[in-house]
């Protein structure tokens, strides 16, 4: 039976309970990189700002490429840690049972390989908890622009403050169909200018936009028909009409209150309904409430494609770059390629070209630029590539970083023009004259080579890829 290495870290050693069952550890770094069977117990007794301390400890673990799946438990419940802790106040047997379950789940996964790439590392972590804590849950975070944060994500993207956007990371994974929405948690409205959820709803004078106004009760004198604010009628302990001097004693007989209205202390205008608008506390802009952008906050779960990516040990980058609706599975792409060849065989004017793009140095780029900058660079790259392609062009990928584009009704010369433009993107995405991302592209006219072949396969495409 597999043995687990139980380790305890006390946040406040002075208050820690006596320990005979676990190996005591003072620095997290000392337990990283050793064995995959470590189970960490954090003793929170007497700790001030326990949540922050726990976050810092767990962040180191989750950012480690070797031990990012380590189960972490607490000796007592600490608020705002439920999203990323495997359990609290559990017995040793219960903790071991969870650790065992996690271990069982990832037995077919190459943990070290998956730990090299951020997105894959995160979804591998989610996959490992599919029997214990399968959901990526947002928690309320007032400091965050989105009012919520995916704390589990923040651990992985090495986020310290709340200016980094766990939502952008989640959205990327969702766009790649690696995770899907599980349950609607909340709905927020954010500023259309800076996407901040920190909005204050204020009512304004509809005439001069001032917030300095007050509600006035109006009185209607039955004797003369005068309608005026109540203050104009007040005379010591009586109500006297300012117009006809009638003493108003009985509501319903002498006077009534037709409505409540507002008087602006700046422009002195009378109005019935103030205008309600939102004021963004981050950028200071005033926004009409119907212009606020509605954002739905979901809990997430790993999709089938995500599970497949974890087991496969690879996330396809195709979703970042190409239009999803025309980005095909490799086998289907090959099948279509075969069909194009047959078409060309029958109809000589049905020419087509095949372009291959290879994007290299992704890992180095991530290490240099950081994941967020790399994501932004990919966004820009994807936008430019999509702009170059037509609606009828189809794409696929035969590896993590190798993509194929099928250009129908395009001669070799046309494909070569696209190829040169694609190569030109390398200069655009790399700044400071440094070559962070390497982009290689080549156009092929494969008809002559494959017209006698029975079937186009991924293997055949790999042969072509090797040629450049």
């Amino acid at each position: 039976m597999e043995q687990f290495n139980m380790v305890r870290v006390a946040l406040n050693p002075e208050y820690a309970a006596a320990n005979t069952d676990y190996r005591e550890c003072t620095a997290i770094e000392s337990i990283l990189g050793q064995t995959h069977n470590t189970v960490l117990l954090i003793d929170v007794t007497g700790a001030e700002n326990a949540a922050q301390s726990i976050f810092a400890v767990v962040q180191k673990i989750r950012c480690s490429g070797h031990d990012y799946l380590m189960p972490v438990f607490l000796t007592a419940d600490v608020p705002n840690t439920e999203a990323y802790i495997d359990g609290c106040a559990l017995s040793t047997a219960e903790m071991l049972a969870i650790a065992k379950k996690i271990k069982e789940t990832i037995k077919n996964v190459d943990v070290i390989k998956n730990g090299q790439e951020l997105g894959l590392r995160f979804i591998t972590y989610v996959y490992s908890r599919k029997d214990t804590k399968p959901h990526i849950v947002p928690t309320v975070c007032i400091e965050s622009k989105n009012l919520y944060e995916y704390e589990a994500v923040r651990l992985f993207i090495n986020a310290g403050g709340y200016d980094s956007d766990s939502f952008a990371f989640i959205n990327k994974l969702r766009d790649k169909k690696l995770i899907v929405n599980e349950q609607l948690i909340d709905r927020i409205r954010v500023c259309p200018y800076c996407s901040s959820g920190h909005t204050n709803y204020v009512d304004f004078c509809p005439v001069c936009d001032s917030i300095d106004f007050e509600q006035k009760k109006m009185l209607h004198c039955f004797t003369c028909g005068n309608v005026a604010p109540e203050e104009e009628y007040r005379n010591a302990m009586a109500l006297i009409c300012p117009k006809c001097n009638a003493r108003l004693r009985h509501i319903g007989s002498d006077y009534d209150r037709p409505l409540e209205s507002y008087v602006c202390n700046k422009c002195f205008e009378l109005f019935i309904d103030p205008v309600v608008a939102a004021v963004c506390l981050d950028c200071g802009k005033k926004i009409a409430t119907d212009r606020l952008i509605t954002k739905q906050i979901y809990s997430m779960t790993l999709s089938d494609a995500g599970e497949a990516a974890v087991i496969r040990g690879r996330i396809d980058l195709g979703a970042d770059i190409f239009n999803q609706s025309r980005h095909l599975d490799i086998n289907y792409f090959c099948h279509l390629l075969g069909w194009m060849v047959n078409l060309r065989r029958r109809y000589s004017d049905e020419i087509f070209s095949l372009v291959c793009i290879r994007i290299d140095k992704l890992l180095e780029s991530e290490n240099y630029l950081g994941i967020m900058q790399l994501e932004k660079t990919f966004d820009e790259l994807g936008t430019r590539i999509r702009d170059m392609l037509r609606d009828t062009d189809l794409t696929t990928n035969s590896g993590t970083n190798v993509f194929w584009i099928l250009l129908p009704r395009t001669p070799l010369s046309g494909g070569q023009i696209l190829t040169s433009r694609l190569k030109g993107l390398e200069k655009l995405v790399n700044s400071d004259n440094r070559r962070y991302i390497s982009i290689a592209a080549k156009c092929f006219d494969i008809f002559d080579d494959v017209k006698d072949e029975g079937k186009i396969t991924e293997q055949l495409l790999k042969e072509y890829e090797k040629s450049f």
Partner: protein
Amino acid sequence: MFEIIMFQPIINSQIISSMLTLAPFIIFFELPWTLFVVFGMFKYKRALQHERYQPHYPAVSCIVCCYSEGKNVIKTIESLLEQIYPGKMEIIIVVDGAKDNQETLFAAKSMMEMVRKYPNRTMKILPKWVRGGLVSGANLGLRNATGEIVIRVDGDSSFDNNMVERAARHFKDPSVVGVSGNLRVRNADKTIWTKLQSIEYFLGITSSKTALSAFNMVNNISGAFGIFRKSIIQQVQGWDAGTAEDLDITLRVKAHFTSELNYRIVFDHESVCHTDVPETLHQYLKQRMRWEGDYYYIVSKHLYTLRPKYLGWPNFIGAIIRMITNLVLPPMNFLFLIVLFVFYPMAYSIALLLVVYIFYLVLNTALYILTVVLFSERPEEDWPRIIYLPLMPLFMVLSRLNAFLANIWEVVGCGHKDSTMAPWWVLRKTKF
């Protein structure tokens, strides 16, 4: 015209004779009473003119006893919210038999939101699911009252917006234990009967009570609109079961008038409550049948305390006058009419009645004019009603006859047990 000329000499001689017959009654009862009222009105007015206004805004609890008023309770609550009163005011809505009076309960609940918009105003709604009667509702409200002053009102009344302030100011004087407010008829212009009742209220309340108040002889704090210092109500242990609870509690409070020095009940003519009155003669007579019979019942209950030792001489004399008016005069009026028409010639009877009529018409008119001039806060409404004064003596005779029947019914049939103040299963158990 011919008949009048024919009978002229007879009438003239009969008139003189009848006037002489009536002289003792006028000299020894009506005139002194009238003079007393007039003198009292001027005394009250003088005191009013010399009054130094000293603001006094204690916490006030308004107990609104509801039953089947339905949405009418909204008007009551609205007019309480309209009070121009800087002090704290809580409105306690007691809905008797709330299970069967859901409309009243929901109407009261619908006003909670509005109450919240008023500073210094709170409202409690106490649904008594099973009907227990007005007195049980009032006592429940008293138990929940947190104010220093308690105002008990009906669920279909409304008030002038200075009602609370006018009443509360009197309690700055620690000797004041109760304030009798003024009652006006809200539906006065509906029918001839409501017009006559509005004059009756005006003369019977505004005229008389100003005079009584001047001598600390206020006879009754109305149940529809009664204002008390909470401590005195608690001292007499709240309202008693049975009918005429207003007269009953007034007498029980007055029983402390000589045991505690200088206790006073005052009347404030400007603290005004508006209430609807019966619109048909039948409804009016039915209502008065209940009210007039209650007096006999109350006297029976309080016979022991109707002494100068407990009430003090002024209030004892007031109680005697009241007893004469309510218990002696009605049968006397009835007998008078029987004897008149049976034993005296028709011409004489008519002449006598004519003299009586003219006498009361002049008296009422004089009192009415004086009251409007001295005390009316709505002269533009009161002056036009003067044209109905010629009908008042006849109306009063009708009322007196009805009172006579009511007294018989109370004596013979225990009429108070038929009261609608409480359900029969409560009334039958009442010890009083």
